[in-house]
């Protein structure tokens, strides 16, 4: 014990050294701990916000979700404009090791000039676009290059799958997805939707494993009143007319006269909204609403309607047209022909300006002005599309002495095509002017916005409208609009030929606006169509230039809408198959189409279908049809026809056979005929209803 004790015995000096060392160690430990705590305090308390942010930046990725614009549909739910996601390629130049080399690599892939890319890379260090909304294959090829500092971001691209179809009505959107024209612009607030911001938590390999945040609100969908098929019919007919007459422009509007809904609205020149930057600015002007012109004789609808409504005249009243000239306020106005005495009906049929001026004078400027405004001229129609013009209409207080004459025949006043077609729709539907409409519905997730109700106000009485319709029908059947006649349907309308004003401010003698406005069928109008051709070459009259366009559109549209024919002429012509038709009176050899379709038939072919016929033959056919139309004997029940056996035949064959025999076919089901009533062999009158059931 003593020995051990002696081993650990320290001297006095040793103890103090140990104590000092211990103290030093303790102090060092305390100091280091203090430093550590201080550092921790600095990092955790003072730099907390900054470091947290930096950490989040490393761990999280913020992705902007582009706003998803709603889809625009036609009235049958066919998409006309929709959005799809596209990759936008951007660069962070500071991260690019060799900017020039990357620019050279990217340029051919994205279809840009390498110099442009180089400049972009050198202008900004933090961000620059390489190509926005690149095509899928472009983005894939850039991704394959695996370049450092090149990134991708999803953006929505607006696509118009039908190309130029209804381009003006739809409009287009800019690079930032904002509507710049058409419905895209006027309903931008509803369609555009809200952008979202999603925070993605990513692991060390930048693989996202968690996301939070708002994904954005999609825009509302819009259903237009346009019908894609009718729109195409109108655009095709207009394009053909433009090519035929080498015209500077043109407009076609098809409207439902009973609601004001616009079924088609076409304007030329046009553009492709997918590539709107490549089109000239004038091509992007919607002439249907943003262009005004002097309507010419089509404006006589106001003068004559007003005179009839005010009971200042009747359709049968004879008016002296003074052999084609009238003096007004020291100006002599000449008619296009030297007419003597014409009835009011004939004034419209032959489009006499002097007759219209005389009716306007009877009205007086105040009443005429009142009716002009009542028909909606001089005011915007408030259609949903932007850029609408109100037209040019002077208040009656500013009219000169000649103004009343000019306005009576459609000069000194400028209208938009939409205003004019709306006015004709008012007469067509019995006298009520409906506001034209382009938007039928706006909805999102089954919730529908409330739209303005269909509103109309009466502009003329039903009696006046009925008289006007009859006179317009006469214009087509006997007057300047005869080229607008449609087979099996009655058509009412009015031609218009207006001189354009040239650069000197005078009426041009070389540039005209040829127009035709009409509706069909006259008894129960389903469509109103306006055709305006600007500066046609080779012909100037509305009846010659625009009438056939109207006919083409009306024929196809009425068939497409399955509107029943309202002229009885076709039924006896088809049913008679020869015996009732006066021999040698205007028969027309069947065309190729007819002979293919109806073998052996020797009936009259309607004049409208046979436009290639000489006028004399067409007139003869028309006269015969008119004779057959006269009186009450429309379908002669004299001879009976044997009902054939339809069993095993297709709908097409049965329909053709029934048509040939003049039977009224009622189809039940589809496939092949399995049952019929009355049974085969029964003697039935032409016009009898045959019910055939089809099954597969």
């Amino acid at each position, binding site marked *: 014990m003593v020995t051990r004790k002696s081993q650990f015995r320290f001297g006095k000096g040793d103890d103090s050294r140990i104590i000092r060392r211990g103290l030093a160690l303790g102090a060092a430990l305390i100091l280091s701990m203090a430093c550590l705590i201080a550092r921790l305090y600095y990092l955790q308390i003072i730099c907390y916000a900054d470091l947290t942010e930096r950490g989040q930046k490393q761990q999280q990725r913020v992705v902007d979700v582009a706003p998803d614009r709603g889809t625009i549909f036609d009235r049958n739910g066919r998409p006309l404009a929709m*959005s799809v996601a596209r990759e936008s390629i951007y660069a962070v130049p500071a991260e690019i090791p060799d900017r020039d080399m990357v620019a050279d690599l990217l340029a051919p892939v994205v279809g840009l000039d390498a110099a442009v890319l180089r400049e972009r890379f050198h202008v900004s260090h933090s961000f620059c676009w390489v190509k926005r909304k690149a095509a899928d294959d472009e983005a894939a090829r850039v991704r394959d290059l695996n370049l450092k500092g090149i990134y991708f971001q999803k953006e929505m691209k607006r696509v118009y799958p039908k190309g130029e179809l209804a381009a003006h009505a739809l409009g287009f959107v800019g690079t930032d997805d904002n509507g710049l024209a058409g419905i895209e612009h006027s309903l931008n607030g509803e369609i555009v939707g809200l952008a979202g911001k999603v925070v993605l938590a990513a692991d060390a390999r930048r693989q996202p494993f968690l996301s939070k945040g708002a994904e954005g609100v999609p825009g509302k969908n819009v259903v237009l009143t346009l019908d894609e098929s009718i729109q195409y019919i109108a655009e095709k007919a207009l394009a053909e007319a433009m090519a035929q007459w080498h015209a500077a422009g043109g407009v076609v509007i098809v409207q439902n006269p009973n609601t004001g809904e616009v079924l088609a609205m076409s304007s030329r020149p046009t553009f492709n909204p997918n590539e709107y930057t490549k089109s000239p600015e004038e091509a992007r002007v919607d002439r249907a609403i943003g262009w005004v012109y002097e309507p010419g004789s089509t404006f006589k609808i106001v003068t004559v309607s007003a005179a009839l409504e005010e009971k200042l005249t009747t359709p049968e009243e004879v008016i002296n047209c003074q052999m084609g000239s009238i003096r007004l306020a020291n100006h002599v106005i000449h008619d296009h022909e030297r007419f003597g005495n014409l009835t009011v009906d004939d004034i419209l049929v032959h489009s006499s300006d002097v007759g219209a001026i005389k009716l306007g004078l009877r009205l007086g400027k105040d009443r005429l002005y009142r009716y002009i405004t009542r028909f909606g001229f001089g005011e915007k129609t408030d259609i949903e599309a932007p850029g609408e013009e109100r037209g040019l209409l002077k208040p009656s207080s500013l009219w000169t002495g000649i103004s009343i004459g000019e306005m009576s025949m459609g000069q000194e006043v400028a209208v938009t095509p939409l205003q004019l077609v709306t006015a004709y729709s008012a007469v067509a539907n019995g006298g009520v002017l409906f506001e034209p409409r382009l938007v039928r519905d706006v909805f999102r997730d089954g919730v529908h916005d409330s739209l303005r109700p269909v509103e109309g106000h009466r502009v003329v009485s039903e009696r006046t409208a009925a008289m006007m319709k009859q006179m317009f029908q006469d214009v087509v059947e006997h007057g300047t609009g005869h080229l607008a006649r449609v087979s099996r349907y009655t058509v009412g309308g009015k031609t218009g030929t207006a001189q354009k004003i040239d650069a000197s401010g005078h009426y041009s003698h070389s540039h005209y606006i040829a127009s035709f406005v009409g509706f069909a069928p006259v008894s129960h109008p389903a469509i109103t169509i306006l055709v305006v051709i600007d500066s046609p070459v080779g012909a100037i009259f509305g009846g010659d230039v625009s009438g056939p366009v109207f006919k083409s559109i009306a024929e196809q549209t009425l068939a497409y809408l399955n509107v029943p024919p309202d002229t009885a002429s076709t039924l006896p012509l088809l049913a008679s198959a020869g015996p009732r038709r006066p021999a040698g009176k205007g028969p027309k050899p069947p065309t190729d*189409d007819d002979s293919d379709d109806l073998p052996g038939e020797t009936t009259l072919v309607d004049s409208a279908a046979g436009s290639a016929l000489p006028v004399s033959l067409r007139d003869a056919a028309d006269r015969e049809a008119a004779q057959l139309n006269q009186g009450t004997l429309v379908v002669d029940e004299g001879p009976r026809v044997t009902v054939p056996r339809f069993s095993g035949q297709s709908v097409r064959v049965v329909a053709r056979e029934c048509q040939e025999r003049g039977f009224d076919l009622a189809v039940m089901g589809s496939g092949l005929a399995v049952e019929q009533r009355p049974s085969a062999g029964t003697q039935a009158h032409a016009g009898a209803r045959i019910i055939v059931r089809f099954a597969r």
Partner: protein
Amino acid sequence: MASVAAESSKPSTARPKLRRNLPVSGRAGTTEVRFVKRINNSRLRREVDRRKQRECYRLLALLVLVFAFGFAYAWQHFQCLRLGYEIQGLKDQRAALQQLNRQLRLEQASLADPQRIDMLAQQEGLTAPTPRQVIQVGPVPTTGSGTEFAGNVLEAAPAASPDSGSESHGKAASKEQ
């Protein structure tokens, strides 16, 4: 005994042993016998300290709880990560399918372009039917007032096949007007 022997065999170096039967003064150098009492305490049971036992259990339970919490936390954390990846994968899949759906709808709309169909029809030698070739079958719109008539006509107009959700939606919307 062994101890006794051991004791006895040991040389008395420290102090002389005293005899018992001698007075204390005369005991020096006497042999001392020590009896070892055998004690069998194997049957003895230690009294359970309930309080300490409870404390022990509590401590154990606490440890288990802490461990369980730790485990649950870790499990939850990793499960969260795993599900996060899974959810993100599904979201990506949904986005890709939505994109595909849009692309297909766009393709469908492009293919249904009337201009394209017209061109194809012309290539096939098809022409538009003449008015005489158009035969109306089935129910036709009734004739009544102008408004009723046109309304019937437009409602009876051919409609696109509602083969996509949005399209059918649009149609439904139209009918509600």
